[in-house]
């Protein structure tokens, strides 16, 4: 089917509009982060003078550097634990017959739709009582709990697609159970687990409500929460530039994920919901 010139122009402009709309707010925050204090209130879309000062400024404060370490550490630990636990459950859901499977799925679904605010009040009180408040586990535990439904869902969809007969075939060819797993099954399961890990990581990286409610200091406050409480490098300066720079820094990993793993993310997001 050869496209006519008109069709090309039509699709081309529709594509362009979609891409531009997706990028404008991101470009704007990038632009703000490079503006000098004198020009930050000039309301132009692009900076007239460029400066790295905002970035140098935030990396000098422990407020930001600690938050960045917290964000990375908390998100990574939560993701690893959630994916391991979710893989076990998803394997059971995809391959084994056992009563209570429906209950597990129903429960995951319920939690996926759970209003986080309903948990914030009791968790706040419980964590204060047992001394978890404002520590890494204060956030890691709820992140695992909310990452699990997403993980069980996505992974059971992926695991159902794996041709498990290959394992038997490998054993018939003389592979030990361990070899059959490491050489045949693990390579087939890894992409799904990796995709799930990206989705869970994005969820943890993104969270704001738990982060502002269950932390109170640089001990465990993550970047989204920290920037909401930024005060600026001096008392007389609006923190616009610092907030913009910090915002750009935590957007970089997201952009990298999207650029390198676009296909996987799309597959992961759609597999659980539609095929599942």
């Amino acid at each position, binding site marked *: 089917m050869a496209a006519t010139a008109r069709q090309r122009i039509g699709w081309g402009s529709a594509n362009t509009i*979609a*891409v531009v709309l997706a990028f404008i*707010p991101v470009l704007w925050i990038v632009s703000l982060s490079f503006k000098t204090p004198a020009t930050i209130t000039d309301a132009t879309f692009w900076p007239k003078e460029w400066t790295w000062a905002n970035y140098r400024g935030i990396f000098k404060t422990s407020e930001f550097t600690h938050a960045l370490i917290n964000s990375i550490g908390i998100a990574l630990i939560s993701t690893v634990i959630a994916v391991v636990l979710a893989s076990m459950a998803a394997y059971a859901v995809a391959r084994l017959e056992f009563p209570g499977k429906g209950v597990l799925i129903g429960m995951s679904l319920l939690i996926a739709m759970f209003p986080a*605010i309903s948990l914030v009040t009791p968790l706040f009180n419980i964590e204060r009582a047992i001394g978890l408040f404002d520590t890494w586990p204060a956030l890691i535990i709820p992140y*695992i709990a909310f990452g699990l439904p997403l993980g069980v869902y996505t992974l059971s969809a992926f695991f159902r697609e794996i041709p498990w007969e290959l394992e038997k075939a490998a054993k018939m060819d003389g592979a030990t159970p361990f070899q059959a797993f490491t050489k045949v099954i693990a390579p087939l399961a890894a992409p799904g687990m990796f995709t799930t890990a990206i989705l869970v990581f994005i969820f943890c990286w993104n969270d704001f*409500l738990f982060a502002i409610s269950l932390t109170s200091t640089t001990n465990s406050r993550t970047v989204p929460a920290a920037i909401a409480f930024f005060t600026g490098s001096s008392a007389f300066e609006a923190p616009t530039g610092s*907030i913009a720079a910090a915002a750009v820094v935590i957007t970089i990993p*997201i952009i990298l994920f999207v650029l390198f793993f676009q296909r996987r993310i799309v597959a992961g*997001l759609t597999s659980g919901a539609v095929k599942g």
Partner: protein
Amino acid sequence: MSIETDTAIAAQAPAKRRTGRPQLSEGARAERRLGWLLCAPAVLVMIAVTAYPIGYAVYLSLERYDLRFPGQAKWVGLSNYGAVLSSPYWWQALKVTAIITVISVIIELVLGMLLALLMHRTLFGRGTVRTSILIPYGIVTVVAAFSWQYAWTPDTGYLSALFGNGAPLTDTTQAIAIIILAEVWKTTPFMALLLMAGLALVPEDLQKAAKVDGATAWQRFRRVTLPLMKPAILVALLFRTLDAFRVFDNIFVLTAGGHNTGSVSILGYDNLFTALNLGIGSAISILIFICVAIIAFLFIKGFGAAAPGTAVKR
């Protein structure tokens, strides 16, 4: 660790077929045990973090509990609920939440469908569009919210400059419109991806047959595509409606709930961390939970949205 046990089962499989009944039930029992064992850690974590706290929240909501005077906690029955339900703040917040939810989900459905059709049908640049729309999906909500906030700040923002340098975030209606804009920008891509997956399930032959029969593009969409996509649309709507009802991040950054723009989540947060009233805050938490349950029930029973869980069993 799940793996060795599993391969053990796989190894048993031929054996149990040969020896018949009693062995088979042995295998089934082992499979059952393994299934439970593998699910146990996930179930325990989910229960510890959701079921237990929600039960505790019910308990707290029946007490008068002010964090400034923790020693004076006292059982007061349902009076916290009475206080919340007779307060204009709750109804205002519920109204704002409902408005934001309904309008943003409708806009997202329309835009998401257009975007899904674009990604499904476009002749070139499909990868570029998909990559680009994943950016709003992936970006931290707070980051996007700050971008919108500064864009609408007088003397700072390009959008404010474009629209006469007003301060729309201090006006209830305009601020809600901006909150909806921020929600729509952030979540339309997710809606579009779910709908695109639904579109992929519509057989190309049916489209062609309708075309041969002389159906216009609009008729093909109305009569062929939409009915076949109904399950995908309902699932997408269910997900997004429940998600939109929880709106918090965007409002917190854009207006902090000022000028009557607070959602129920903002109200709950404020009652806990500003008013330090644990009893009232818990009552609000429970009421929000009930609202979400009602919405989910309406979608699943009323519209016949397949709860995705039921499909997984298939």
